[in-house]
């Protein structure tokens, strides 16, 4: 406990592990090719900067094309834009509050929607995307560049999230900003400035004051001497006048994009379900898709070949030869279109009034491989023919740029349902995993080519590789993938891979291996939505006689430690933690493999139980 000022100074230096939230961003941070629109026009208010690098502009244009407006747009262009944007705001605000608060009354839902209409007017004049020519895409930046998007999320307080696309991707942006407003909306009734929960006007105003100035300012609208009282007055004025309605042709028009799906962070969303003659069946007790799901009840309606049918189990189906061909995930819609040589873009709910036909559930890996020309398979190695951006998601934030001529293993693929078969590969480059663009049906050969597998870091083994069983309970060897049991192969056993098989929408991985004279399949994890491959087996790149990794555990007197993403306490924390001595867990969950040790005092470790890797200060480890 004896201390010196010098040591305290040292502590100040050491405690600067980065917050996952905020940063002192400068004005117009990452604001490239800034343009000015107007101070008074809906849709192109104030300034805007390139959407890149916060999101991929081509994907944003594909997804949100209907709500892009020219900078300095004509009044007719503004009217068209507002007629498209209005139903999006109406639907997303309704979807949001009903998702968060299923018990919300109709009056509360309407009040919340009205509040959001006024909020997007006050914050941005309903502006989000705009362009100056067909090749670029910009997004509004207000408050000297700090405010991002239609709801003006501030990059000083939300730096990391905005960097990850919470400003640029309109759907994610709504979900992010509505969280902030909703928290204030929920807190408002407990404040003295809101007489009752159903006093919608005061609740709306209180939530706006908090949205604009923080929760400490929630009653600011009642204080006319506040430095920012004019913001509250302006908001009220907009709320009362509802001027946006002057530009909306039809307030009941359905949204042209599926904003409910997009607001959950998905990028491949079916079109908003068109009205069906009968309401869709209730989604009761959905079960995983099987090869022979129960057929729908009998009816008389004929199927069309021009739409996808979505049933209550989430299957997407196309009608062909008097049967429904289905895939479990809409992200593979392009493969179904490719197989049938169609360009279906509309989706309708699959009610019980259709004729009874057989349903066949297909496997994405087979359908996509057969119908998408030039598509690499999962596990293939590809060489980049040019430098390509690596993004967190196909449309998402830029992680880094992979130089040309690098070879990488394909961990997953996505083909966009855009009639061009635009494709993306999920890859790991260095410590970053994300998606690279890999061209379209006509340009794919310009972007990547097949590469020899022995030149890439592997996460999925190839035929001929050795793997080591890592699952604590061992892994069952079966006659077929998921079939009859042969035997269990114990943990730490080394076996050779004779075959690799991927199946289902989760990219379940099976290896065909030989153990004690018997050949059969072992399960090795799933690749989607998150990869668990590393927790099942480890690809053994070492010669058989090589020593094993040294093993360690956390020795520091803590409950848990973060697996840092880089070798500095200033790194942003990763999402992975490992137990320390003070946390009660089985001994097997403490085991870390030390992969390397740096001279600067950091160890790269692999947590055996989860397969996660990261960095820990070497002094916090002890050998076991």
């Amino acid at each position: 406990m004896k201390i010196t000022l010098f040591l305290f100074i040292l502590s100040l230096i050491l405690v600067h592990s980065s917050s996952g939230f905020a940063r002192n961003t400068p004005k117009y941070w990452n604001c490239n090719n800034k343009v000015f629109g107007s101070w008074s026009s809906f849709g192109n208010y104030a300034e805007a900067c390139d959407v890149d690098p916060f999101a991929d502009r081509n994907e944003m244009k594909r997804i949100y094309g209907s709500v892009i407006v020219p900078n300095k747009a004509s009044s007719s262009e503004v009217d068209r834009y507002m007629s498209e944007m209005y139903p999006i705001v109406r639907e997303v605000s309704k979807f949001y509050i009903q998702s968060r608060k299923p018990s919300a009354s109709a009056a509360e839902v309407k009040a919340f929607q009205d509040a959001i209409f006024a909020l997007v007017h006050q914050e941005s004049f309903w502006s989000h995307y705009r362009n100056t020519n067909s090749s670029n895409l910009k997004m509004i930046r207000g408050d000297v560049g700090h405010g991002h998007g239609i709801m003006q999320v501030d990059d000083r307080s939300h730096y990391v999230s905005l960097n990850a696309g919470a400003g640029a991707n309109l759907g994610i942006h709504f979900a992010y900003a509505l969280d902030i407003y909703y928290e204030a909306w929920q807190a408002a009734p407990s404040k003295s400035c809101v007489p009752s929960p159903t006093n919608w006007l005061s609740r709306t105003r209180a939530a706006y004051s908090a949205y604009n100035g923080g929760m400490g300012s929630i009653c600011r609208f009642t204080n006319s001497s506040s430095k920012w009282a004019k913001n509250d007055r302006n908001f009220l004025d907009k709320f009362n006048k509802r001027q946006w309605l002057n530009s909306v042709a039809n307030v009941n028009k359905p949204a042209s994009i599926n904003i409910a799906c997009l607001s959950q962070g998905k990028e491949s969303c079916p079109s908003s379900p068109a009205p069906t003659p009968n309401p869709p069946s209730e989604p009761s007790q959905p079960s995983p898709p099987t090869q022979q799901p129960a057929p729908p009840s009998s009816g008389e309606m004929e199927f069309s070949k021009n739409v996808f049918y979505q049933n209550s189990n989430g299957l997407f189906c196309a009608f062909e030869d008097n049967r429904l061909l289905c895939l479990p995930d809409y992200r593979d819609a392009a493969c179904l279109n490719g197989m049938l040589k169609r360009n279906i873009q509309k989706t309708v709910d699959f009610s019980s009034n259709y004729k009874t036909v057989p349903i066949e559930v297909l496997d994405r890996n087979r359908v996509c491989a057969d119908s998408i020309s030039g598509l690499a398979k999962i596990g293939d190695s590809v060489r980049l023919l040019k430098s390509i951006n690596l993004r967190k998601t196909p449309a998402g934030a830029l992680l880094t740029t992979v130089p040309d001529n690098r070879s990488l293993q394909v961990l997953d693929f996505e083909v966009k349902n855009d009639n061009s078969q635009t494709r993306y590969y999920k890859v790991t480059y260095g410590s970053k995993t994300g998606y690279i663009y890999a061209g379209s049906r006509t340009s794919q050969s310009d972007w990547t080519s097949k590469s020899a597998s022995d030149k890439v870091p592997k996460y999925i083994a190839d035929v001929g590789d050795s793997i080591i069983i890592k699952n604590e309970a061992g892994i069952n060897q079966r006659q077929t993938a998921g079939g009859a049991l042969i035997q269990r192969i114990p943990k730490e056993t080394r076996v050779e891979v004779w075959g690799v098989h991927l199946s289902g929408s989760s990219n379940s991985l099976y290896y065909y291996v030989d153990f004690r004279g018997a050949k059969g399949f072992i399960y090795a994890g799933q690749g989607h939505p998150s990869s668990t491959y590393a927790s099942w087996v480890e690809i053994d790149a070492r010669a058989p006689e090589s020593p094993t990794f040294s093993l360690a555990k956390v020795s520091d007197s803590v409950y848990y430690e973060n697996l840092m993403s880089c070798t500095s306490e200033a790194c942003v924390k990763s999402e992975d933690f490992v137990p320390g001595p003070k946390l009660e867990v089985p001994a097997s969950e403490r085991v870390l493999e030390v992969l390397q040790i740096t001279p600067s005092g950091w160890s790269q470790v692999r947590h055996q139980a989860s397969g996660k890797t990261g960095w820990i200060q070497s002094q916090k480890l002890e050998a076991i």
Partner: protein
Amino acid sequence: MKNKTLLLPLFILAIGISAYRSFDSNKDREVQVDRALPTSTSRGPAQTVPSSKSKVSKIQSKIKPVQFDLEDYHARLLKIKSCYSHENCRYDNSDPRAYEFAVGKDLAQKLNQLKSYVSKNSLEDPRLSQIAREFMSLPDGRVKEAALDLMATQAPNPKNLDSVLRDIIGSFNEKLIPQALMELNKYPDPQSQKAIANAISENLSTGSFRVRQKLAEHSMNYINSSNYDHYNAISKNLPVNSVVKTHLDAALTEYRMKNSGG
């Protein structure tokens, strides 16, 4: 090396001056907040925080002694916290959001300093948990993060559990979810597990979109034999094709496969 050592006190002076300018109510005390935390590199068994009046000091040449007084430090934190609700503190108020940002930054920084000291000295004290809970309830994500880091150094107690479930799991700060789930591992007893399962279930269904997705993404971290059926039932009531259901179903499958050997 000597020159560098001499430069460091200048660095702290600069920080002190900066803090002095950012917070004018009780200027002298503000500087003292920064200087009130001692630091030790010693590692050892858990120690107890000195009582409010017990003080330790060491004088090195040309360096003034500093003192650690937890209650005093807590009072300083509360003073900064009070700046949220009025605009009288001398933080940047050039736009409505700048002010709140500056207050939160200051609070988070001071909580981080406290956590660093506590961590280095392996201190455990109920008052530290109380501070963590108090600041975890604030809406600023940075402050919540700093409070969670402080709580991470402390022994489990039911109030801390309630605080994590309400103020992190129930908030919209999805970046804190992975660490919050790790923190919840301190509570393996059945009663706590029931409270945890209830809170997670509620937020998987009606939480912030980002939080429910992150909870589902990390569900392999909390699904176990005693709650498998519970989460299986939750999944059946989630919207088909939702990101949450996709992640939760994948985790349930993975749990089943892991335990059966695939």
